[in-house]
């Protein structure tokens, strides 16, 4: 592998892993609070759609990002209402939301932009940390990325800190492991869980925006294409710990990048094998082959007072 190839590989691994990292961090917080959102996929798609349409309509990618974040709120609140207030089956409602969003965004996109439109949409600016961007070969391929990538890294670190070291984080974790104790302490289990699901929504929307206006500058029907499920797999693979989850996302990103890298290097590996690799890895993880899995004890269980 030449230096240049290695640089491109590292750069694209980061770029492909980032949306997963954002969505998985959001989902991890919610799962620690006891709510499983199968709807991460739908939330990402909503964000991608809102961001793309917003950026196209206003001509400003920043406004697009804001619109993408706003667009996800009804979806996240719907998921929260169904799984927390109505105590509906979290897996069924999540899949329901994914189907609804896939249909809704497809129809709306065709109505707004026409059937097979490939309009270039104004995208988020690229940025590189001072100094790093000037390194020969590596600077451009690795460090010159959408600024959202750097913002995302900061957000992930922030989320890790809040979850581990603050009262809010303690409340989130407690709600997922001992909701009754939280209730007795006078804190509302419902409120904390709503907050966690909305956080998942916002992070997923950021991930979606990263795809549509950060990475490829256009929207295509169902463009998340399973990334949401991959984020869920990353949380499992990460054993519900944020550091391991982030590593899993980077690994999944690298596996995806290899799909494009290996043919370029003349290595003939079936694409399907590389695409299924993340799922296989997650399967091995849940199979207990890489240490014991400890899901939050109240995951997917509604709290009844």
């Amino acid at each position, binding site marked *: 592998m030449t230096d240049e190839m290695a640089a491109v590989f590292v750069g694209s691994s980061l770029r492909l892993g980032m949306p997963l990292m954002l969505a998985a961090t959001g989902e991890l917080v919610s799962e620690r609070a006891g709510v499983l959102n199968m709807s991460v996929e739908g939330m990402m798609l909503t964000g991608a759609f809102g961001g793309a349409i917003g950026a196209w309509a206003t001509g400003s990618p920043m406004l697009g990002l804001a619109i993408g974040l706003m667009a996800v709120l009804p979806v996240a609140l719907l998921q929260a209402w169904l799984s927390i207030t*109505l105590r509906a089956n979290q897996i069924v409602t999540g899949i*329901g939301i994914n189907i609804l969003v896939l*249909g809704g965004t497809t129809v709306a996109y065709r109505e707004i932009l026409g059937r097979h439109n490939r309009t270039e949409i104004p995208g988020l600016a690229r940025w590189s940390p001072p100094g790093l961007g000037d390194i020969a070969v590596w600077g451009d391929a690795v460090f010159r990325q959408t600024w959202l990538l750097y913002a995302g890294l900061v957000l992930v670190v922030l989320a890790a800190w809040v979850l581990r070291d603050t009262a809010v984080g303690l409340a989130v974790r407690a709600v997922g492991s001992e909701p009754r104790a939280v209730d007795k302490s006078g804190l509302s289990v419902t409120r904390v869980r709503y907050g966690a699901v909305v956080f998942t929504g916002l992070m997923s929307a950021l991930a979606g925006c990263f795809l549509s206006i950060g990475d490829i500058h256009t929207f295509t029907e169902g463009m998340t294409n399973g990334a949401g499920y991959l984020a869920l797999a990353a949380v499992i693979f990460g054993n519900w710990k944020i550091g391991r989850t982030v590593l899993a996302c980077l690994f999944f990103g690298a596996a995806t990048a290899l799909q494009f890298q290996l043919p370029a290097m003349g290595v003939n590996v079936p694409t399907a094998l590389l695409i*299924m690799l993340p799922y296989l890895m997650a399967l091995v993880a849940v199979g207990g082959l890489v240490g014991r899995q400890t899901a939050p*004890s109240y995951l997917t269980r509604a709290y009844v007072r």
Partner: protein
Amino acid sequence: MSRAWTTPLVVQTIECAQAPARLTAAAPARGNSNECVDDSAALLFANRANLTNVGGEGQIAVGGIAATAVALYGGASALPVPLSFGVPMLAAVVAGGIWGAIAGVLKAKAGTNEVISTLLLSFVAVWILYGSVQSEALLRQPMTNTATLPESLEIPDPTKLPLLSANADTPLHVGLLIALAIALVTAIALERSVWGLRLRAIGLNPVAARRAGMRIAPAIVLVLFLAGALGGLAGAFMLQGDQGSLKARFSSGYGFDGLVVGLLARGSVPGVLAAAALFGFLRSGGINMELEAGVPSAVVLVIQGLIILMLAGTAFWIDSRKEGTR
């Protein structure tokens, strides 16, 4: 730790105990909706598998792969008639069963939540399917020119399921009879046998069942094997009764539709009938709607999503009315 895994186990096994009733409902629904006969059949069978797992999509896929491989390259077409389509079907059943049993083994050995493992297995299977129709060394048809589609050859006629009537407008095939037979056997096994009773006991209270000397791990593996086997059979029906050749998007969405139908029906026979027929109609109706009226078929997805959410959301009220105040 144990508490975390008990609930899914209970749900899973209870659902299994209810499977026969739903299976019985599957067959008549096929006849009801002429337009989407095959859709509904596949969907209903996927539904059987999905009662306990969300991996129907994957089990359909491996079932399809196995049936295709045996029908095309296993020499099945040279066999006498019932065997010529029966052997590929059997291969699909075994393949789907093994796929389901993996989740069962993981659950029994490592306590892995079967919802998660079957979902992951499902993705793996779908990509195995994709890979196998992309590679000529596997199932892809020989590339005669650049326009050769990435799909398998059409399976030979003797390996296709025989139609029940000569009229091509009602494409009811022998799968219907097989379905009825399986329904009957499963119903008897689960409702009238000691094994069925044990299964229900394990579902209702695994701790008590274990204390009573029942072996839980083999039961879990067997139940998920059977669930997977029915998923595999659904794949065989889709291939041998409908599509004729294996394509990358072979199982597209049936597994998930089946899951949702199964969960929405909530153990009621008329429920499965109604929900499956509705989803079957929606699927075939959506295609016609796009062709005839120019309405994007994605509208169907919106409607499906809304139905799922409304029914799942109101389940709480329906349950509390049924059970009264506790």
